[in-house]
């Protein structure tokens, strides 16, 4: 009667991941009005940025390979992906480190990094659909946008998924200093500023001076936003996706390493 025995451990682990991911989705699905407010704000910023970039195209027809439609599409895609790839500060992990809850997390038979990755991969589709779709549709009603070929849509979804993993890798890393610092606000401000600028969120990387653009494209922040957008625009090179995979592996690996270092000497204050 071996068939009725416990499922294989690996299957059980994936099942746990799935349950965690569902909770990631539900956490945000629980506040529909917050989602609506966010959609409104992303849409307003989309309009502002679109008009600013269009003003550049009164004197130019092409900037760094983008025509006016590409640039406006860029703006709306970036606003639509802003929550999916979580550009702004994420402090859940550092708060758990600060208040000592991390000790409970570490005593569970779950790897904390794997937990947050599963949680985030459940969260991201919610934000892609409910925070991303509407601003893009509104943008598409007012401006002429670039729409991708069917194959690029598929590649876009893959690239967004990779972008989420890279983004989590970055966020996980900038939360870990909380093991050593009482207040990571300084680290957080720096990380978010670098993320906003070098991801191309404020101005597309195509608008950067060449040398700065070359540097920015190699950084992980570009893998979290610029790459999926380039895929959508049909302007990506295969190496950009390879770079996404590479950053995902490197950042998650670095996160594990730092976490192991930190927990070796963990002393929980109270709790």
């Amino acid at each position, binding site marked *: 009667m071996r068939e009725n025995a416990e499922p294989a451990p690996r299957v059980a682990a994936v099942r746990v991941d799935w349950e965690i991911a569902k909770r990631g989705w539900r956490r945000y699905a629980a506040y529909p009005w917050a989602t609506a407010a966010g959609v409104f704000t992303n849409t307003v910023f989309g309009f502002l940025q679109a*008009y600013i970039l269009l003003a550049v195209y009164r004197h130019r027809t092409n900037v760094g390979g983008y025509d006016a439609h590409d640039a406006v599409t860029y703006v709306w895609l970036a606003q639509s992906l802003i929550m999916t790839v979580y550009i702004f500060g994420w402090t859940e992990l550092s708060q758990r480190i600060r208040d000592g809850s991390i000790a409970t997390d570490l005593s569970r038979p779950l790897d904390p990094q794997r937990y947050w990755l599963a949680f985030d991969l459940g969260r991201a589709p919610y934000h892609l659909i409910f925070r991303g779709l509407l601003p893009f549709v509104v943008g598409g009603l007012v401006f002429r946008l670039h729409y991708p070929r069917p194959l690029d849509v598929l590649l876009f979804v893959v690239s967004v998924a990779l972008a989420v993993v890279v983004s989590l890798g970055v966020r996980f890393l900038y939360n870990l200093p909380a093991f050593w610092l009482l207040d990571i606000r300084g680290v957080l401000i720096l990380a978010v500023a670098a993320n906003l600028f070098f991801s191309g969120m404020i*101005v597309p990387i195509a*608008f950067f001076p060449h040398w700065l653009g070359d540097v920015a494209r190699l950084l992980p922040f570009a893998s979290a936003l610029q790459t999926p957008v380039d895929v959508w625009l049909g302007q990506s090179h295969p190496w950009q996706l390879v770079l996404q995979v590479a950053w995902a592996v490197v950042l998650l690996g670095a996160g594990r390493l730092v976490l192991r270092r930190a927990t070796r000497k963990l002393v929980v204050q109270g709790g």
Partner: protein
Amino acid sequence: VADGIAVWRRLVAAQVRSQLQYRLSFALELVGVFTIAFLDFLAVLVIFHNTPRLAEWSVQEVAFLYALSSISFAFTDLAIGHLDLFPQLIRDGNFDILLVRPRGTLLQVAASDFQLRRLGKAAQGAVVLVYALAALHVHWTVARVVVLIVSIPAGVLIFASVWIVFACVAFWAVDSGEFTNAFTYGGNFLAQYPIDIYGAWLRRFLAYLVPLAFVCYFPALFVLGKPDPLGLPHVLQFLSPAVALAALSAAVAAWRVAVRHYRSAGG
């Protein structure tokens, strides 16, 4: 009113003293905020890397708009930026505590969290302003100096009014925090660029109805002696202080109405 200002000053002074207790930590934060704020301006420079003019505006002229808006916004943020956390006060039912005290609720909320480090942003705006003025060769007259100086407090009042009005939404919808951001942070972003580049309907709503064009666009036209690309009446360039006072009255009225509708979460 005088009594209210005295109370506010005492509350704020106490917070400033406490923040100055850790001098090094405070200095580092100030420098951090100052430095990070330049990334924002870097975006303006990146845009002008691709074009000599944004519509009919040069980089120095946009820097001037950027500086005026940033300075006004930084002072607003300093005084009432913590309205960002206001929905939390409603959600927890802690607004009740303010209601039982013998002072106005708006005054108490305004005085509750004064973060001196936000001055770093104003300092960054001032540096950009100096750069813009040095590069622009403004033909100074008494009137231009007055309009420039008055535009800062007027801008602060306009931004503050916008912040208060949209924070009021939290009395009805607790999850409205991000909605407010569209008008506060979005408002600063809008005002940093010349408003003639925006679509007409957006301009009507966000620049005139929400009077963000009076923060720096109209005063800047006068100071720079620049013909209005939109061809609007000249008199608008002097109306910022009046608009600011009107906006503030509207904001205070909106706040009163909202407080009357407050139903406690039972904190």
